[in-house]
């Protein structure tokens, strides 16, 4: 199919038109609007970098940024450790291991919004009840302060996504030839040695994939945030994605929201690119 032929372009038209109208044109418009005083409908003048300067002094944005960074660091570590742990567990041959796989993956089928509501009940009612039964105060009022709200979000995300990460690690674990492990076993390598010297290096590509997914996903989280804490109390648990939505649709500050959205794009894109580039290089070295 040559690219001068009509059918070549007819086959491509629907997706190219959709991609342009849905992603690229709005992206360029957004970039432009971030330098204006746009109110969602029209604008009267160009304001240069005013929105970006305002954003630097915006306390909500700064707070959301650091909250999100902390959240991403913690969840990337936990998700990869727990995801790999679960993968190692269910790849041991024992009765019920395939049932367990299904159980660990199940939360992924349910949307983040509903997961947040489920856990809102557990944190506000279940933890409270457990706390008063055991006379432990730190179990009570989980969603009403910043630090426990943070851990609440971490728990929901880990419960939801570690099954997904597990599935990816399983795919790579199953690619390790059995003979290699058996040979090491015969040579007298301990379980720990087998893991650190063979399994771990052989699943290095899985890290590239899982790091990429957990990192970029962490920055983009919105639904769980909305339904679990709604950013409260006093916006202290508001993450970047939510701050942008609220700046636009609740505070009606569309131009500022666009500037935040552009910065958000730069952060997410930079992390994705650097991360893929770095991991590719590391894989080659191994």
């Amino acid at each position, binding site marked *: 199919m040559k*690219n001068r032929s009509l*059918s070549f372009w007819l*086959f491509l038209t629907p997706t190219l038109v959709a991609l342009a109208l*849905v992603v690229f*044109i709005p992206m360029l418009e957004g970039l432009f609007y971030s330098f204006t005083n746009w109110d969602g409908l029209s604008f009267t003048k160009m304001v240069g970098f005013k929105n970006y300067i305002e954003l630097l002094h915006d306390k909500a944005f700064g707070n959301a940024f650091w909250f999100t960074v902390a959240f991403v660091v913690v969840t990337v570590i936990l998700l990869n450790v727990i995801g790999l742990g679960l993968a190692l567990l269910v790849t041991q041959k024992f009765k019920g291991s395939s049932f367990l796989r299904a159980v660990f993956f199940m939360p992924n089928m349910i949307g983040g919004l509903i997961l947040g509501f489920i856990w809102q*009940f557990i944190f506000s*009612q279940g933890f409270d009840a457990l706390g008063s039964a055991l006379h432990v105060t730190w179990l009570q009022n989980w969603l009403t302060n910043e630090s426990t709200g943070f851990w609440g979000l971490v728990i929901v995300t880990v419960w939801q996504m570690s099954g997904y990460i597990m599935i990816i690690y399983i795919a790579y674990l199953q690619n390790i030839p059995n003979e290699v492990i058996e040979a090491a076993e015969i040579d007298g390598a301990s379980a720990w040695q087998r893991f650190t010297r063979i399994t771990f290096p052989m699943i290095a590509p899985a890290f590239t994939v899982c790091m990429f997914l957990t990192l970029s996903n962490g920055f983009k989280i919105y639904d769980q945030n909305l339904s679990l804490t709604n950013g409260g109390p006093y916006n202290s648990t508001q993450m970047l*994605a939510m701050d942008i939505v609220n700046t636009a649709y609740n505070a009606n500050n569309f131009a500022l929201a666009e500037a935040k959205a552009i910065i958000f794009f730069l952060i997410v894109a930079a992390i994705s690119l650097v991360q893929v580039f770095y991991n590719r290089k590391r894989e080659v070295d191994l």
Partner: protein
Amino acid sequence: MKTRQKTIIGIVGILIGLLWLFPFYMIGTNSFKTPKGIFASVLSLPHPVTTDNYVNSFKALSFLGSLTNSLIITICSVLLIILCSSMAAYALQRNKSKLSGALLLLFISSMLIPFQSVMIPLTANFGGVHMLNMWGLMFMYLGFDCSLSIFLYQGTLSSIPIAMDEAAEMEGASRWQIYFKIILPMLSPMTVTVAILNIIAIWNDYLLPSLVLPQVQYTIPLQMFNFFGEYTKQWHLALAGITLSIIPVILFYLFAQKWIIKGVTDGAVK
């Protein structure tokens, strides 16, 4: 020693599994309790058992209506994505040129753009031409989700020999006939993967539909959000609503588990 080790691993596995299932136990059991019953003890089994919560939340959620909306939007969007992205991947893969390479790069680079960066102009534009409805939404899903789908199809197409196309061409088949009669059927394993990934994402999506859909076209997540706002802290109703809304997903998961796991693996690993 070996069998003892296996038993220990099995027990540890089951304990972690129970921990994972615990949230489902909490919402399941409490959804059958009266408000008093929830207040008395959230951890115990329901006593007395009531099904009123389900009857009431079924009505308050307009469950059948929102289920229908969710089904229409998910099925139509996924069919559109499958058809259009397999066509695009076919065109790009069978014509190895600089232009095709550049177009593929364009598709892939769009995956770097987070939704929040485009949502405000996007909804303003579509609002301007009165497309803030489920048809507009389906078109938006095509734009957002075609890149990954094209990428996945493109990989599979490279393993279908071009001699197949050429033989059909000799017999006088047109491009469209080749695509519909030969290529699309041969792509079906990848189509399952593409369908699964998109079904999960679109069925559960909240933010985009919340910006696009009018209230009569609300999907299950949107109804759920509204419902929560209205019945804040009426946990007996809220929990029955949650349980109702996840039943279709659990049924789908039980039915299609094998393909779901395979689809998710392919989607992430390829």
